[in-house]
C-alpha cells in the first residue's frame, strides 16, 4: 500500500493542478467597478484554499476506495473540522466547500461497510419484519409530528409557510405517484391539472362567489376531466413518447391560460381570490359585511398566524386523504391492474383487462388530486398567474416521486422535505443553494438508484411476516 503512495500523491497533485488552472480565471480574477473603470481584483487566497482542498479531497477518496479506512476517515474529519472551525476563510462558501469535501470522504469511507451491513440486515427474516414495522412506526411518528407542528415552538411564520409548501408538494407527489409509480405512465405535464384546479377555484370564487369547500370537489372533477382528455390521445403511447406528449399538454394548458385573456386575464393573472373559510368564518382582522371572522367566532384575539395554521391543517387533511385513497386503491382490483399494466401490458390484455379504461382511470384519479391541490394553492396564494405552472413544476414533482422511490408513499415525503425544504432552509447560501439541490439529487441517484425507499410492500399477503426466531 505504501508503495503506491507516490502514485496517489501524483494523481492528487495533478487533479489539483487541473482545478487550479480551470479556477484561475473563474475564481482567481474578478473585475470590480471602482467608478474610474474596471479593475482586477485578485482572489488567489480563495483559489489556493480550494486547490489544497481538492488535493486532499482527491487523496481522501483514493484512500477510501483502497479500503484504507482509518487514514481516509482521519483526513475527512480533519477537512470537516477545518471547514467548520472558526478559522477565518475568505468566504462562507469556502467553509461549506471544505466541509462538504470532508463529509464526502467520510461517506465514501463508510459506504461499502454500511452497504454490506444494510444488505445483510435487509435479507434476514428479522430485518424484513423490522423494516415493515419500522416503516409503519416511522409513518405514525411523522403523522403525529405533523399534526402537532402548529403547537410546537417551531411554529413561526417562516416554518409554517414552509410546512404548507412542503405538504403541497407531498400531496402532488402522492397524486403523481398514482400515475407514474403505480400505473407506470411517465407524465411530464402533471402541473397542467394543478393549473386547472387553481384556475377553477380562482374563476369560480371571484366570478360567481362560490366558497372554497364548494369548489374543491368541482375543481377535482374538472381536473379529472382534463385527465381523461389527455388520456385519450396518449393511450397508445408508451415510455418516452408518452412523456413528450404529456409535456406538450402541460405547455398547451399554460399557453392557453397565458393567451386567453378573456377567460384567465392572461399574464396579469387573477388576484383577490378569497381564502378558505371555516364554517363561513373568514380569516382576517375585520370581516366583510354579513360575515364574522374566525377570531370572533371562537372568541379569541385575532392573530395573523390563525390563517396560516388553518391552511396548514387543510393541506395536511387533503394530503392524508390522497394517501389514504392511494393505500386503499392499491389493494383493490383497479390498483392491482395499474401495477400489472406497468409490469406488462400485453399480459394484461391476455387476461382480459381493458388497458384503455385502466389507464384512463389512473390519469383521471391522478389529475383529480392535482386539481384539489391546485385549488388549495389558489386559495393560499390569493393570486395566481400562468407563471406558477411552468414545466419546472412538473419536473420537480416528478423528481420527488422518482427520488422518493416510485410507488413509495413515505419516500415521497422524504424527497419532498429534501427537495423543497432544503433549498428554502439554505436560502442564505444564495445562488449556491441550487448547487446543493443538484448535488442532493445526484447523490441520491448514485447511492440509491431506485429512489430513497425502493421497497415495495405487497398489496396482499398469504403468509403474514413473522419476526425471526
Amino acid at each position: 500500500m505504501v508503495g503506491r503512495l507516490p502514485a496517489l500523491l501524483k494523481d492528487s497533485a495533478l487533479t489539483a493542478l487541473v482545478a487550479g488552472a480551470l479556477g484561475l480565471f473563474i475564481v482567481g480574477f474578478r473585475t470590480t467597478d471602482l467608478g474610474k473603470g474596471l479593475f482586477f481584483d485578485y482572489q488567489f487566497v480563495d483559489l489556493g484554499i480550494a486547490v489544497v482542498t481538492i488535493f486532499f479531497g482527491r487523496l481522501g477518496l483514493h484512500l477510501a476506495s483502497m479500503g484504507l479506512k482509518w487514514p481516509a476517515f482521519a483526513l475527512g474529519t480533519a477537512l470537516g473540522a477545518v471547514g467548520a472551525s472558526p478559522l477565518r476563510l475568505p468566504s462562507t462558501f469556502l467553509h461549506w466547500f471544505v466541509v462538504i469535501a470532508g463529509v464526502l470522504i467520510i461517506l465514501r469511507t463508510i459506504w461499502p461497510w454500511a452497504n454490506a451491513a444494510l444488505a445483510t440486515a435487509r435479507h434476514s427474516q428479522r430485518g424484513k419484519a423490522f423494516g415493515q414495522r419500522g416503516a409503519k412506526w416511522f409513518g405514525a411518528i411523522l403523522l403525529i409530528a405533523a399534526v402537532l407542528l402548529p403547537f410546537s415552538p417551531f411554529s413561526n411564520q417562516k416554518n409554517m409557510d414552509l410546512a404548507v409548501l412542503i405538504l403541497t408538494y407531498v400531496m402532488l407527489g402522492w397524486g403523481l405517484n398514482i400515475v407514474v409509480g403505480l400505473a407506470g405512465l411517465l407524465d411530464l405535464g402533471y402541473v397542467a391539472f394543478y393549473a386547472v384546479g387553481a384556475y377553477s377555484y380562482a374563476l369560480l370564487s371571484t366570478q360567481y362567489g362560490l366558497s372554497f369547500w364548494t369548489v374543491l370537489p368541482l375543481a377535482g372533477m374538472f381536473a379529472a376531466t382534463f385527465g381523461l382528455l389527455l388520456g385519450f390521445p396518449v393511450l397508445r403511447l408508451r415510455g418516452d413518447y408518452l412523456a413528450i406528449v404529456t409535456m406538450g399538454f402541460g405547455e398547451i394548458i399554460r399557453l392557453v391560460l397565458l393567451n386567453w385573456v378573456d377567460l384567465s386575464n392572461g399574464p396579469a393573472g387573477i388576484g383577490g381570490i378569497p381564502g378558505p373559510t371555516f364554517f363561513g368564518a373568514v380569516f382576517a382582522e375585520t370581516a366583510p359585511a354579513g360575515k364574522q371572522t374566525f377570531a370572533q367566532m371562537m372568541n379569541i384575539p385575532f392573530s395573523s398566524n390563525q390563517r396560516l395554521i388553518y391552511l396548514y391543517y387543510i393541506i395536511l387533511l387533503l394530503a392524508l386523504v390522497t394517501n389514504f385513497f392511494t393505500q386503499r386503491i392499491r389493494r383493490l382490483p383497479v390498483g392491482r391492474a395499474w401495477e400489472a399494466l406497468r409490469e406488462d401490458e400485453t399480459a394484461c390484455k391476455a387476461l382480459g383487462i381493458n388497458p384503455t379504461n385502466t389507464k384512463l382511470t389512473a390519469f383521471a384519479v391522478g389529475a383529480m388530486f392535482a386539481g384539489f391541490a391546485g385549488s388549495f394553492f389558489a386559495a393560499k396564494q390569493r393570486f395566481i398567474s400562468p407563471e406558477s405552472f411552468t414545466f419546472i413544476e412538473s419536473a420537480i414533482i416528478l423528481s420527488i416521486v422518482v427520488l422518493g422511490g416510485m410507488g413509495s408513499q413515505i419516500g415521497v415525503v422524504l424527497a419532498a422535505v429534501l427537495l423543497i425544504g432544503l433549498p428554502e432552509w439554505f436560502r442564505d447560501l444564495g445562488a449556491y443553494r441550487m448547487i446543493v439541490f443538484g448535488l442532493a439529487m445526484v447523490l441520491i441517484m448514485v447511492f440509491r438508484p431506485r429512489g430513497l425507499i425502493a421497497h415495495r410492500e405487497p398489496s396482499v399477503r398469504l403468509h403474514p411476516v413473522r419476526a425471526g426466531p
Partner: protein
Amino acid sequence: MSAANPQPLIEVEHLTMRFGGLVAVDDVSFRAGPRAITAIIGPNGAGKTTVFNCITGFYKPTVGRLTLRGDREYLLERMLGHEVGQKARVARTFQNIRLFPGMTVLENLLVAQHNKLMRASGMSIFGLLGLQRYRTAEAAAIDKARSWLERIQLLADADRPAGELPYGAQRRLEIARAMCSDPQLLCLDEPAAGLNPRESAELNDLLVSIRDVDGIGVLLIEHDMTVVMRISNHIVVLDYGRKIAEGAPDEVRNDPAVIRAYLGTAEDGPDA
C-alpha cells in the same frame, strides 16, 4: 376425434393472416373439442403462434372465422383485443414468459381474476368503502389462488416477487394465472420450452388434470414431442402456414407429409 364431435369448443374456418406480402397463415381450418387437448405442431416459422395470436385477439385475421362455443357462441375475430379474454374467456400463456415480475406470486393470480373482482368492487366504489360484498369476493379470489398455488407447488412462495422464481416455477405460475381467469379455452404457447425432463413430466400431469378435472379445453403449441404425443387427443400439423395433416397422435406420427416436413426428403437436398 373432434371432427366427429358435433359441438367443438372452437372452430377455426379458413383462417388466413397476411402481413403485407407475407402469408403467415394460409387457409387453415380445424376444430378443437371441449375437454380435450389439441396440439398445434410444425417446424419453426410454420405460423403456429400467429394462429394463437388470431384466436386470442392479438391479431385481426385477414380472412376467416373463429367461433368459440362456450356458455354461448362468440365470434372471436370480431372482438377487440382484451374482450377475447374478458368476454369469451380465452386465456393464454406466452412463448417467452410474461408474468408481472415485480408483483408477488399471489398478486399475479389476483390480477388474473380482475374482471370478477372489479364487478364485486362495484367499479372500486364498494371496495373503497370496504363493503362486505367486496371483502367476500376478495377472500374467495384468494382461496382460489391458494388452491392453484397448492396444485403447482408454489404455496410457500406466494409472497415472493414472481420475477424471483426459478424458470420452471414461472412457467407453472403462468399457467395457473391463466387458469385463475376462469377460462373456457386455455391456449398454451410452448409451455414445456426450457423445462428439464422431470418438470416436463409434471407439466404433463398438470395439463391432463386441467383437461380431466377442470374440464377445460386446451390448445397447445409444443415442440417437445414427448409432451405432445403423450397427452394430446388431437394434433394439427402446420408447415409454411398451411395445414398439412390432422388427426390422433398415432395417425399424425406416421403421416408421410408430416415426416417430410420434419425430416425433409431426398429431393430437398442436404440443407433441408
